[in-house]
């Protein structure tokens, strides 16, 4: 593992739960690795597969999607839709030669600041183990 490797992770966070959870982590001054760049979406169910593909094909080392807990979705069922999509996406990533482990999905509520920070640390560690996304090299060829 390259110690200096700084992974780039794109995070799509649902506005109502995980984004607010990320705010809480900050408000509580819980520290986590600064590798995730957050894009706020209204609902995890609105995350289009192309967002994930685009991020990974452009060389992001990981993608994280955060939604509300089962039953808590502000839009009733968006989080379930997201979950189904993630399962599909993981198998698609494999066919493209990308590690499915680069795609992360978690249910984090607005009150789970600690869980958000822990998840960020975990993702950062795991992605570091995986190493850089080789997609970048392919493009360079």
């Amino acid at each position, binding site marked *: 593992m390259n110690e200096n490797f700084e992974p*780039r992770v*794109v995070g799509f966070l649902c506005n109502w739960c995980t*984004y*607010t959870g*990320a*705010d*809480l*982590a*900050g*408000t509580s*001054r*819980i*520290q*986590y690795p*600064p590798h995730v*760049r*957050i*894009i*706020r*979406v*209204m*609902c995890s*169910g*609105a*995350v*289009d*597969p*192309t*967002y994930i593909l*685009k*991020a990974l094909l*452009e*060389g*992001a080392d990981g993608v994280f999607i955060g939604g509300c807990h089962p*039953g*808590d*979705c*502000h*839009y*009733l*069922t*968006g989080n379930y*839709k997201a979950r189904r*999509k993630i399962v599909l996406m993981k198998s698609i990533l494999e066919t493209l030669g990308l590690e499915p482990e680069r795609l992360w999905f978690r249910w984090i509520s607005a009150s789970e600041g600690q869980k958000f*920070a822990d998840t960020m640390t975990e993702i950062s560690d795991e992605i570091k183990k995986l190493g850089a996304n080789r997609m970048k090299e392919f493009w360079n060829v």
Partner: protein
Amino acid sequence: MKGTPPRKIGVFVCHCGKNIAGVVDVNRVVEDISRLESVAFAMDYKYMCSQPGQAMIQEKIREKGLEGVIVAACTPNLHEATFRKAASKAGLNPYCVEMANIREQCAWAHQNDPEKATRKAVEIIRTMIQKTAEDKPLYEGSIPVLKRAMVIGGGVAGIQASLDIADAGYEVILVEREPSIGGHMAQLSETFPTLDCAQCVLTPKMVAAGTHPNIKILAWSEAREVSGYVGNFTVTIERKASGVDWTKCTGCGMCMEKCPIKIPAEFDRGLGVRKAIYSPFPQAVPNKPVIDREHCLHYAKGKCGICQKVCEVGAIDFDQAPEIIKEEVGAIIVATGFDIYPKENIGEYGAGKIPDVIDSLAFERLLSASGPTSGEIRRPSDGKIPETIVFVQCSGSRDPEKHKPYCSRICCMYTAKQALLYKHAVHKGRPYIFYIDIRSGGKNYEEFVARAQEEGVIYIRGKVSRIYQSGDKVTVVGVDTLLAKPAQIDADMVVLAMAMVPKEGSDDLRKVLKITADKNGFWTEAHPKMDPVGTTTRGIYLAGCGQAPRDVPDTVAQASGAAGKVISLFSRETLSLDPMIVSVDEELCAGCGLCVSVCPYEARILDEKKKVAIVNEALCKGCGACMAACPNSACIHKNFSKKQVLKMVDALS
């Protein structure tokens, strides 16, 4: 309304005192950002949200002709509205103002690494520039409000909410599933901590609701379907077949008196009897009977018909069919209330098989002057007056492992009340209460518990492990944790303070209303603190124990709160609509209908002729599920468009 995409973007970086500037090198951020192409202007300031800060933004908008503004400061949840309002005063469309969250998700989260935090802050702003460059000016639409409300559930919450709205001059339709309004409160004996009679305070309210010119009570009815949106709901209601023509019925009660069939009465928790044609209790509103088709001889065997013979006005109509009606309303209050967790579910407490182990609501009926024993406390098995009663608190509550994880909140208080009332009724009686903690938060509640203790109710701290029949006694096996000794009581009767659960059928109604519930089945409020009576669906409000266990004063207060929300809604002629919804590009839409099926709000229909999806803008809540489902990118989430997100991803990679 088409606007040109803003090109000239202004970036305002906030120090937030030392909160941001103490970690992020704001000067470098401004420097880096200024170099970017679409940034027309960038600056930093100590407190952007302050009056001078806002004024500065307004000034720059005018001076530089900014077409988009990014405030790099705290979370949008905090000050997005503030800055949008400020910008609109300077003539910029508020939806072209964005926040870059460099405080909560950057400065505060990476306090120990200023270098990385600074780089992250720049990237955060860069992504927001991509978004802002494509932000369209948006304009709020408006819809008319139908000033007529529906209240579902006629317990004390529903009655109170109906009366408040009706008194404000608006029409209310009160839908009740049972033959009469009144709910559980009508079953109670006396209420804590004042020990005033529940019926004495409730029945006048029931009568007021029954006679109010603005209230239409639809008893023996259930809401089956809800369509529409805030201000414009259409509710389909089933008026169940009662077998009695209520327009003719005078409520004389002769049919009930003569009916030969006796069945354990639900209202008396099975301790009393009712007839096959019945009204739940004498003070019922409306005071009209219904026929229980399952038990009525006429329906079972085609015989009897005594009620028809004795009815002088010819109101009995055995062939009556259920009726489906539609009501248009502008707002809905859900007040469906609670059920008691079945004692059959607790095996170690006898699984409901021991006759003298009853639940707390059944004991209320024994205490009630209008109950099956006329207020004399007699145990179910042999009618003996019990000399020892054991009350078991937390029966099913605070038990995440087997039963319900939550505290049912009212049991401590009503158990103290029941023990005290029993003591008053049976002077030589001995009441014992097994408890884990006594929760008596409420006005005069602690004083009330102290009174029960002082008057000789014996509290034993410990949870009961087992209850079994031994001879004509019921043995309660517990522990006194304060003495650390097992404690066993041979009681004449046991009262289980069972957990409160959401009313049976709540889940079906949840699907009809398209609102959410928590894992225990209680309705979820729009915000647990700041909007405890709202739901995630605008125009639908909550009251009573369907949302969470609560006592009578809290229920009444919440009902008035929900009514207040409805009245405030009705005070306007029109409502503004959130413009950040999803539209359809008709040229790209192939009419596949995928978006129609994924929409959780039924906000989309397929125009069969034009083969395009059509959005009902009042119903769309802008979740974007359709956008993710659309194979043609024909769904455009306004200011959250695919193009915007992809450009943001680009800026990150």
